[in-house]
């Protein structure tokens, strides 16, 4: 019996981006089916269509053999489909129980029966072996637990088909192991699981069959055991890719950024950074590894002047810049590739040219004392579009019309042409296609070779290992590991530090701060 049949699905988004170009996709009941493909291949869109969040431009869907029109998630849920999204769909200020029963609240007269709600949650947690703290607010939970809540949320609604969108992206290798165990148990009890990923090792480990998407099309469905990682990779990208980037030897010179005993307590009273000390030298890449939510975001925001109230010292080129706002730091030769490119990195409605000059619009050669020079701006933008391979109509088209990878290239083009001495790159390749990823990583190496000091924050361990000269690991707001060289270091090894299982002694961690 086929659990899901999707036939000739086409999806065009309102901004003209074509995400699915006639996809056929079938899943057998009770199997774990991996949906693989690089970023932008249309995996998430296809699953959002199945879950009713997006509606297809054309195409046909059958669930357990019956033709259906999934116009909204409510319909999907009643068909027995559940989805765990990449960005958790939880209401932070509500408790786990409240999140869990939202839309199916048990009542006593007219009010919600909280006791029964808590009991329902605890029973479900027991039944599926996924313990969660029912009465706690979601806000305070670690990522791994939040994910459990998400999975339980789907199960408690009677899901028979469970979609997981890149569930391991935010987990450590060890947490991933636990998740896989739970998924296997679910599959054994008859659950159909669709697992979106682009991490081939995990796909090989967990799935029974897999479907590969490329550029919005299905390029093959295989039994997992019958296809090699290399073959999957080749089909995903459509050419032989060697995502092995030649790391050049580092020739570190003077210290550019020096962070001493940085401490920070967030508005909600949580201490998210504790005695952080490290330095970055000209001509090296310092990698910051760690599970998301262990203080990296706050660290970057403080360093780049987007967050204030930190204790300790931040010294840039010998000058104390602690708690200085971004408009001061931008004038001190600091460049920043932010984690959230759409929220911070670009103005979608502005043109490519306007985006490219946002940190230097007031300076020569783009502006006189007050009046801007459109011709100079245009020339610069045309040059950048060429040098950075930005696929666009021209400098005047709005950034909104570009694909994710090209948006990131606009941003990268600006930050790499800013003549900065320090570059803070926060998840610089998240969610972009392989070609763009390769391009950005090569540019980072180039920058380092030119003598820029690079601070690389990434949740992608492969990226960290590939690019960094030295590595620090953050866990619960502290540096718990320091690796002055990365030769011989494995993802598993880093994972133990990221989880807080292992920890270097104080004296070694102190060495991260080189004078």
């Amino acid at each position, binding site marked *: 019996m086929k659990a899901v049949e999707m036939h000739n699905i086409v999806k065009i988004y309102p901004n003209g981006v074509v995400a699915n170009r006639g996809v056929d996709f079938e899943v057998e009941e009770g199997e774990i089916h991996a949906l693989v493909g690089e970023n932008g291949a249309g995996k998430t869109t296809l699953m959002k269509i199945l879950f009713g969040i997006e509606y297809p431009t054309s195409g046909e869907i059958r669930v357990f053999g019956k033709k259906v029109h999934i116009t909204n998630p409510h319909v999907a849920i009643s068909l027995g489909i559940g989805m765990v999204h990449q960005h958790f769909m939880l209401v932070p*200020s509500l408790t786990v129980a409240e999140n869990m029963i*939202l839309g199916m609240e048990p009542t006593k007269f007219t009010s*919600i029966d909280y006791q029964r709600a808590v009991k329902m949650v605890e029973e479900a947690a027991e039944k599926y072996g996924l313990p969660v703290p029912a009465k706690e607010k979601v806000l305070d939970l670690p990522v791994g637990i939040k994910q459990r809540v998400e999975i339980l949320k789907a199960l408690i609604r009677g899901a028979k088909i469970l979609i997981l969108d890149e569930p391991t992206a935010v987990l450590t290798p060890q947490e991933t192991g636990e998740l896989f165990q739970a998924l296997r148990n679910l599959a054994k009890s008859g659950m159909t699981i669709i697992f979106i990923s682009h991490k081939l090792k995990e796909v090989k480990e967990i799935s029974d069959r897999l479907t590969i998407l490329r550029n919005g099309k299905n390029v093959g469905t295989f039994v997992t055991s019958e296809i090699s990682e290399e073959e999957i990779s080749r089909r995903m990208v459509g050419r032989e890719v060697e995502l092995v980037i030649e790391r050049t030897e580092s020739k570190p010179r003077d210290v550019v950024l020096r962070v001493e005993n940085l401490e920070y307590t967030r508005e909600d009273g949580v201490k998210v950074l504790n005695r952080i000390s490290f330095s970055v030298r000209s001509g090296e890449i310092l990698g910051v590894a760690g599970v998301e939510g262990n203080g990296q975001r706050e660290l970057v925001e403080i360093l780049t002047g987007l967050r204030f109230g930190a204790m300790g010292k931040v010294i840039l080129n010998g000058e104390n810049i602690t708690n200085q706002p971004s408009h001061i730091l931008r004038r001190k030769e600091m460049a920043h590739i932010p984690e959230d490119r759409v929220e911070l990195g670009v103005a979608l409605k502005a043109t490519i040219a306007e985006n490219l000059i946002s940190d230097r619009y007031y300076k020569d050669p783009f502006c006189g004392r007050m009046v801007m020079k459109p011709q100079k701006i245009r020339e610069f933008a045309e040059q950048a579009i060429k040098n950075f391979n930005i696929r666009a109509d021209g400098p005047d088209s709005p950034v909104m019309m570009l694909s994710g990878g090209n948006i990131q290239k606009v941003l990268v083009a600006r930050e790499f042409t800013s003549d900065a001495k320090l570059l803070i790159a926060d998840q610089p390749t998240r969610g972009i296609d392989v070609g763009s990823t390769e391009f950005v990583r090569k540019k980072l190496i180039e920058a380092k070779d030119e003598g820029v000091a690079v601070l690389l924050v990434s949740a992608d361990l492969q990226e960290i290992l590939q690019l960094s000269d030295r590595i620090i690991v953050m866990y619960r707001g502290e540096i718990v590991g320091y690796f002055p060289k990365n030769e011989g270091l494995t993802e598993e090894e880093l994972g133990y530090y990221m989880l807080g299982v292992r920890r270097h002694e104080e004296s070694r961690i102190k060495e991260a701060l080189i004078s």
Partner: protein
Amino acid sequence: MNSVLRGILSTQFVYSILRVSTPLIFATLGALLSDVSGVINIALEGMMLMSAFWGVMVSAWTGSAWMGLLAGVVSSILLALALAYFHLNLKTDLILAGIALNIFSSGFTVSLLFMISGDKGSSASVKSYVLPRLNIPFLGKIPILGDMINNHHVLTYLAFLSVFLVQYLIYKTPLGLKMKAVGENPDAAQSVGVSVIRVKYIALILSGLMAGLGGAFLSMGYVSWFARDMTNGRGFIGLAAQALGGHSAIGGMLGALLFGFAEALSYTLQAIQLPSEITNMLPFIFTIVALIIYARSRLSKLHALR
């Protein structure tokens, strides 16, 4: 100055605070119900105005104040539905849609008033009815307090009752939970099959209901006629009071009472021959000052620039 003090310290002054706060409390609750669901209802002002107008006209036409109240509330809810339709279905900018509906209400009521009564200023020539005051014997027997809280307009009692009903609705019922979820993370609500649009529609209807009650009070209690643009910013003051109270109905009520105090004070000051232009400004200046104090206290806790 002495007479002002005597004015403020009288039981009558407290009585008048409760009276002038009534429409503000309704407006505040209206603002709260929509804000919890993530909708800023700028059109409260227009909704109140519509209700005030139809209350007078229908009560005059049917001879029943209660029919007037019903008509007023219905007209206000219709306007809320229009806001919901434009914002949620046609994707009109929320703030601009609210401004547009306020302009619409102002133009609509003046045009119709002129058509019906031949007067653009007020409905004084139309014989309309007012809703009753309630004399609750056991309240009246309480010394001092009795004079303050007894013998109020029926909608004044309903306003205070509504505060607790709204608080219960938001924090204890399934609808309230859905409203909070939709307001805080609509994607999360949608992902469990809650219809975001439906919840927002309901929230706006409830918001319109509150605004309708507040508007009806103005023309069928506070005074006994309709006057051009008689809401005079009360809908906006309701928004400010809600901002002060956050997502608590009781907090919002306190905010509304604060502005009610300013308004009552302005009447007391008028009695000692202060120019009416000056005293009329008082509630608005009060609102500005309160907004500043509130914003400053909130800001001191924030670290992020965004």
